[in-house]
């Protein structure tokens, strides 16, 4: 076929027209050679090259190349070289669809954890802990798990703002170039906790260039009291490093180290090392935990004994304890030797601590003032405890904390600050009310705010610069011991965001340097020897900088006389007259931390581990206080003191201290994205610098208004086990006497089935064991599951209707008296029953059993009768009542794990033991030419992230697998086994180790 043989439509039209001639352009009318050429080229049928074989190939080549180039531009792979971990060198041969794992590190208010990020085709989808990082050991917290969603937050700041209006990057560049900083007299930097060595060195550079400038660090939830306590005890600021795994007796003075006061997984990992009971030896070694606190925390829930008291009373308790063990004399002591609960508790603690000696550990929480930290140090020293070491901060912390912020705000209001550089964070929201930060901010001529959100601070600053997400940027973070890790980006900044280091160096050096260069140059300068490049590459690969200086513990002793003197002096300052009225304590939120995660739907929908509250905070009060004040759940009250006031909904928290209210920070955000806006109330409105953690003398008044609080567990009847043997619990003593006590808690009849029982004797048989003694209830597994399995966020309204979708949930039950209850936590994934009640009732066989013992769910076969969910005794099946992905912004879809399908409305979904991971590993094994899967080779998402290593998954057909061994433990039981359902997920009963003197 050629053009000369086959005249095309065009040529017919232009050349052989009979009758009236219609023309479309003057060119056509004239029928110029140009026109003919144009026609010839325009229409492929006429294009001469297309007819030539070689040319067609050229076209195809060109197309392939341009497609490739198009793909290249769409791909956000960073230009810089980042190194994958976990899959070793093998992964350097990129195969489409195969995930890459990169190491990185995350800092959260001074807690630094090394992470491993799974990326699919250049987009991060899942965060795991880095097993090589000592603060992670392979685990990750709920916050860390959820932070991957932040990359795809549709409401993230994407544009430079000037005075709240959209501006261009060149405008900003010009503005920064114009800054007349001189000697820096009017220059102030305000950042969060600086844990980045690079940023610290840039800070040094900045302060060198602008000697009169100041750099203030402020965190709404900080470790400042810890340093101040060491200053008080030892005369120098030091970080305390408790060795939880060495301690036999732990006394936590308002320290939720298993929960929110330690947002790093290794605390829990270390503590549970000596908690776990898998042998008789373990039983002898089992630690004992005493908790003294106001709000019910996870540490209180896991404690063997818990004493509730107002946050401000803990100081006196610490003094009494110090006095009783003889650590510090000359203190004002009250309430020792009585017969009340506190006195008995104190006496028992003292006796236990003394007996433990070197294995005793007293820790003070970050909310407690310096004196309590100092007292704890003194007690540990007196007892000869070897369970705590101290190190000097590698990064200077001299201008950090609320007082520094207050001073800065004063300077700002006084007009002494002409240029304020806010490097991340949202101080306009998190600053205490009395600093009037927003007002002060408006007095600053030029304020630059670097932030991930267009938040309250962005609204008040003259310039707002989008900040790159942790997973988009180069950086480094050092733990408090000084161990550094490199933060690697997984993706180029989606909105062109910058990092704190970039902005700091920009201001100082006057030109922009990429964070990669800043970080790399810093570390190349630190490295010694001639293999610097290799060291850098190894640091990237391992996720820890081997050469970073881990500071050695300092040998210090408490000067008790000086301490006693200082304590008596500070008593007046710290212990405000216990004025009448209510004490309000300020706590981190398990969902938003200090508000930085407010727009994270995964976290907003993760229930508080104790109250089970989602999508909001509440003023938590004790049952007695609620009765005294005639309050019930959902009553809106005003909490006021002086000129600060806030309206808050009340929630009754069993076990809370009386006459005290606890509120979670991080809610009531006004300038926030779609998820966090207007959720809960803003506790910062009543937080003042003199009552930073505990504010006294608050008045509580009922407004008559009501608010609906959404909890995932029914309040009241659903809070207790109703005498059922679901969470089986005993004491170490009971277990010693009768190891069969767990089994005896329910009678499991023999199964007589008319069907022949299916034999699961062959091949891999997946099973799970969950150790309730180790599990703290931290929620990390819940969020890990959401991230791994693409479970949707449904929102407050749907949660109120009981339609939350978590495939693994954390059940919480109270036992005992409502004033002093104990709490048990129980993670509930699917039990993968061998005789699954859900399977036989499905009319269309959408849920069936796999030969490997999994209760599989075929989403595309499900018609949605919900019969399976009704018949599931554990209620672990979740139905898509609506299309929960309907209003989802497109960018958020990038977070999904491509190995797991996203379910449509009208179908049931459930835990599958991460079947995608099982299959992936099986395929890999097959590729390697082996049939056996090694024990521990497959980890479910919940298991992998569990800081307590409480969840163990594996092949129960292999008698040597860890899960088989755990299931052989006498503590092992299957929940509701009496139904004949043969659950594959079993539990190891919870053991506590109470002091016999206190249980009588």
């Amino acid at each position, binding site marked *: 076929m050629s053009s000369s043989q086959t005249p095309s439509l065009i040529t017919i039209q232009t050349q052989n027209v009979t009758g009236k001639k219609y023309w479309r352009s003057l060119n056509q009318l004239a029928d110029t050679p140009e026109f003919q050429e144009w026609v010839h080229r325009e229409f492929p049928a006429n294009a001469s090259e297309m007819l030539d074989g070689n040319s067609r190939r050229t076209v195809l080549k060109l197309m392939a190349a341009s497609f490739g180039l198009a793909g290249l531009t769409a791909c956000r792979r960073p230009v810089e070289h980042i190194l994958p971990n976990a899959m070793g060198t093998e992964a350097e041969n990129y195969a489409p669809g195969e995930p890459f794992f990169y190491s990185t590190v995350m800092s959260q208010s001074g807690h630094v954890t090394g992470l491993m990020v799974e990326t699919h085709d250049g987009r991060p989808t899942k965060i795991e802990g880095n097993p090589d990082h000592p603060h992670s050991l392979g685990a990750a917290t709920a916050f860390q798990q959820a932070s991957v969603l932040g990359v795809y937050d549709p409401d993230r700041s994407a544009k430079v703002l000037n005075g709240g209006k959209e501006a261009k990057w060149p405008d900003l560049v010009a503005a920064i170039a114009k800054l007349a900083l001189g000697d820096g007299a009017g220059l102030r930097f305000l950042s969060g906790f600086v844990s980045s060595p690079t940023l610290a060195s840039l800070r040094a550079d900045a302060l060198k260039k602008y000697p009169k400038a100041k750099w203030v660090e402020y965190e709404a939830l900080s470790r400042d009291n810890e340093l101040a306590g060491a200053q008080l005890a030892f005369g120098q600021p030091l970080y305390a490093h408790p060795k939880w795994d060495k301690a036999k007796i732990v006394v936590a003075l308002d320290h939720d180290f298993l929960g929110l006061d330690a947002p790093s997984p290794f605390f829990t990992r270390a503590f549970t090392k000596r908690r776990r009971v898998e042998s008789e030896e373990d039983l002898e070694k089992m630690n004992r935990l005493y908790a003294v606190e106001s709000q019910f925390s996870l540490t209180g829930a896991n404690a063997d004994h818990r004493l509730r008291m107002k946050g401000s009373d803990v100081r006196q308790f610490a003094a009494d304890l110090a006095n009783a063990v003889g650590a510090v004399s000359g203190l004002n002591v009250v309430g020792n030797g009585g017969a009340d609960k506190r006195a008995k508790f104190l006496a028992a603690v003292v006796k236990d601590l003394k007996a433990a000696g070197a294995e005793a550990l007293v820790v003070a929480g970050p909310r407690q003032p310096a004196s309590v930290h100092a007292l704890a140090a003194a007690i540990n020293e007196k007892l000869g405890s070897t369970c705590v070491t101290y190190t000097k901060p590698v990064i200077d912390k001299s201008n950090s904390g609320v007082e520094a912020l207050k001073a800065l705000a004063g300077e700002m209001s006084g007009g002494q600050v002409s240029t304020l550089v806010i490097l991340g964070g949202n101080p306009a929201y998190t600053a205490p009310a009395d600093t009037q930060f927003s007002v002060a901010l408006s007095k600053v001529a030029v304020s630059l705010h670097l932030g991930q959100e267009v938040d309250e601070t962005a609204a008040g600053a003259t310039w707002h610069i989008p900040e790159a997400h942790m997973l988009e940027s180069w950086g480094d973070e050092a733990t408090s011991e000084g161990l550094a890790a490199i933060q690697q980006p997984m993706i180029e900044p989606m909105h062109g965001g910058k990092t704190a280091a970039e902005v700091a160096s920009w201001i100082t050096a006057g030109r922009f340097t990429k964070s990669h260069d800043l970080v790399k140059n810093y570390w190349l300068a630190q490295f010694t020897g001639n293999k610097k490049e290799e060291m850098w590459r190894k640091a990237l690969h391992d996720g820890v900088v081997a050469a970073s200086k881990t500071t050695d513990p300092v040998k210090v002793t408490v000067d008790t006389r000086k301490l006693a003197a200082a304590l008596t002096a500070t008593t007046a300052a710290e212990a405000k007259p216990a004025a009448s009225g209510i004490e309000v304590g300020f706590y981190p939120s398990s969902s938003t931390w200090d508000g930085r995660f407010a727009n994270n739907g995964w976290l907003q929908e993760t229930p508080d581990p104790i109250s089970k509250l989602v999508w909001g905070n509440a003023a938590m009060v004790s049952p007695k206080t609620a009765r005294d004040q005639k309050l019930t759940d959902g009553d809106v009250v005003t909490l006021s003191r002086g000129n600060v006031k806030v309206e808050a909904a009340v929630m009754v928290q069993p076990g809370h201290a009386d006459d005290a209210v606890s509120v979670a920070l991080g809610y009531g955000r006004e300038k926030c994205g779609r998820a966090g806006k207007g959720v809960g109330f803003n506790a910062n409105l009543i937080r003042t610098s003199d009552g930073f953690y505990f504010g006294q003398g608050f008045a509580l008044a009922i407004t008559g208004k009501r608010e609906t609080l959404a909890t995932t567990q029914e309040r009241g009847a659903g809070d207790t086990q109703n005498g059922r043997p679901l969470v089986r619990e005993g004491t170490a003593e009971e277990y010693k006497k009768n190891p069969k006590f767990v089994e005896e808690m329910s009678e499991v009849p023999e199964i007589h089935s008319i069907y022949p029982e299916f034999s699961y004797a062959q091949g891999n048989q997946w099973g799970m064991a969950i150790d309730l003694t180790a599990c703290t209830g931290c929620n990390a597994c819940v969020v890990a599951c959401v991230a791994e399995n693409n479970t949707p966020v449904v929102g407050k309204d749907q949660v109120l209707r009981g339609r939350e979708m978590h495939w693994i949930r954390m059940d919480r039950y109270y036992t005992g008296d409502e004033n002093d209850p104990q709490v048990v936590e129980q993670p509930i994934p699917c039990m993968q029953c061998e005789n699954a009640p859900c399977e036989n009732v499905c009319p269309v066989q959408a849920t069936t059993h796999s030969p490997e013992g999994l209760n599989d769910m075929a989403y595309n076969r499900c*018609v949605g009768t919900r019969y399976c969910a009704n018949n599931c*005794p554990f209620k672990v099946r979740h139905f898509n009542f609506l299309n929960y992905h309907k209003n989802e912004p497109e960018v958020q879809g990038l977070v999904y794990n491509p190995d797991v399908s996203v379910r449509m409305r009208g179908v049931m979904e459930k835990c599958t033991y991460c079947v995608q991971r099982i299959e992936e590993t099986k395929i890999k094994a097959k590729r390697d030419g082996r049939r056996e899967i090694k024990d521990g080779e497959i980890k479910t998402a919940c298991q992998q992230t569990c800081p307590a290593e409480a969840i163990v998954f594996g092949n129960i057909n292999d008698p040597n697998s860890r899960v088989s061994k755990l299931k052989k433990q006498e503590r092992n039981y299957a929940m509701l086994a009496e139904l004949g359902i043969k659950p594959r997920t079993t539990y190891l009963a919870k053991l506590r180790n109470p002091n016999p003197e206190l249980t009588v």
Partner: protein
Amino acid sequence: MSAVLQDPALMEVNPPLVRSTNYHDLTEQISAIVEGDVIKTPTKYWITLGVTASITGLLGAMLGYLLVTGIGVWGNNRPVGWAWDITNFVFWIGIGHAGTLISAILFLFRQKWRTSINRSAEAMTLFAVMCAGIFPLFHTGRPWRAYWLFPIPNTDLNLWQNFRSPLIWDVFAVSTYFTVSALFWFTGLVPDLATLRDRSTTRVKQVVFGLLSLGWRGSARHWNNYEKAYLILAAISTPLVLSVHSIVSFDFATSVVPGWHTTIFPPYFVAGAIFSGFACVMTLLLIARWTLNLQNLITMKHLENMNKIILVTGSVVSYAYACEFFIAWYSGNIYERFTFWNRAFGPYWWAAWSMYTCNLIIPQLYWFKKMRNNLWVMFIISITTNIGMWFERFVIIATSLTRDFLPSSWGYFHPTYVDMCTFAGTIGLFLTLFLVFARFLPMIAISEVKGVLAVEKHTFKGEEVATR
């Protein structure tokens, strides 16, 4: 059988069942309603039909909304996977039971008094089953895939259904029931349709009734075949009366949910179904009797007999309630015990006590003859019985599901307006269908009642029996 037949108390010979002077008058009386020539259909009828049809339209709107949005428009949640949807399903299926019982079982037992009420009772059955059928279809998350429940080629996989699932049994039981009931009803209609055909004054009517009456000429052979067919259908239907609701009860009884998992359910559900079905027939008949002046055909005798059945089945249901409580206690099973304690005294106490009041206490009035013969009493009881029976299903479903094994997943069910409007809509559909039926088809089986008229002449008089 013969002993039963000769028992004068059961023969119901005295007083006469129906009062009509002769065959002609009877034909005239019934046909006039259908033909609407002599007695003009009152405007009230059309107004009522308009109202019920509008409510049916509401049903359509609600179902449309459900289809485009999802089950989430209802109040169903976790743990309450089934709520008003299945409550309404069981409720309507239950109502349908009286029809088959009256047409089949009472027929086999030669209960002649059934003749005046069987036609409308059967029609009611069909309409109730239609209403019932809506719920299992639309309660699925993906109704456009609901056909996968039928054993027809489906999907590329061509998977079979799961025959272990009671829901599949339901599909078969209900569809069989509907088919047989429809056949039975239509067979019974044939002679009457022929009567109407013969009386037709317009061509349209002639054609329509002509086609429907299947060439019925009333010959002896026709009658012979008809009676045989009717008897066979009655024999086929009889086990269905027991099977349908037994199988519906299996949805619950075969599950593990405390409060559902109980062997008493099949008889308990069947009795409850007949109880509610008779009450519903009673409600409709009383209204028809008043509005259409059928006092001579639907006599106090009919009504009293039905009240007796209501009393019996109500008592069976009450016994089942008591038995459940006893077994819950006697089993020693903590979950069972809690469920029944929770049923009576938990958050749904109001629903449970409404049910006990309506089903257990109120029908006891029927021990008194005076009450059985009081039209107002029986009208009110017929209504309360159905309220009670709706609550029974709701209580069984909601109290059991809201609080089962793990207290952590306990919840509560709040219906939405869509739930309410959908249920109201099915009532509208039911009434619409019934109104259309009452106007366009003979509500009373003319040929069968004629048989009863004849019987009156050829049976023993009371005194004859006494002297024998």
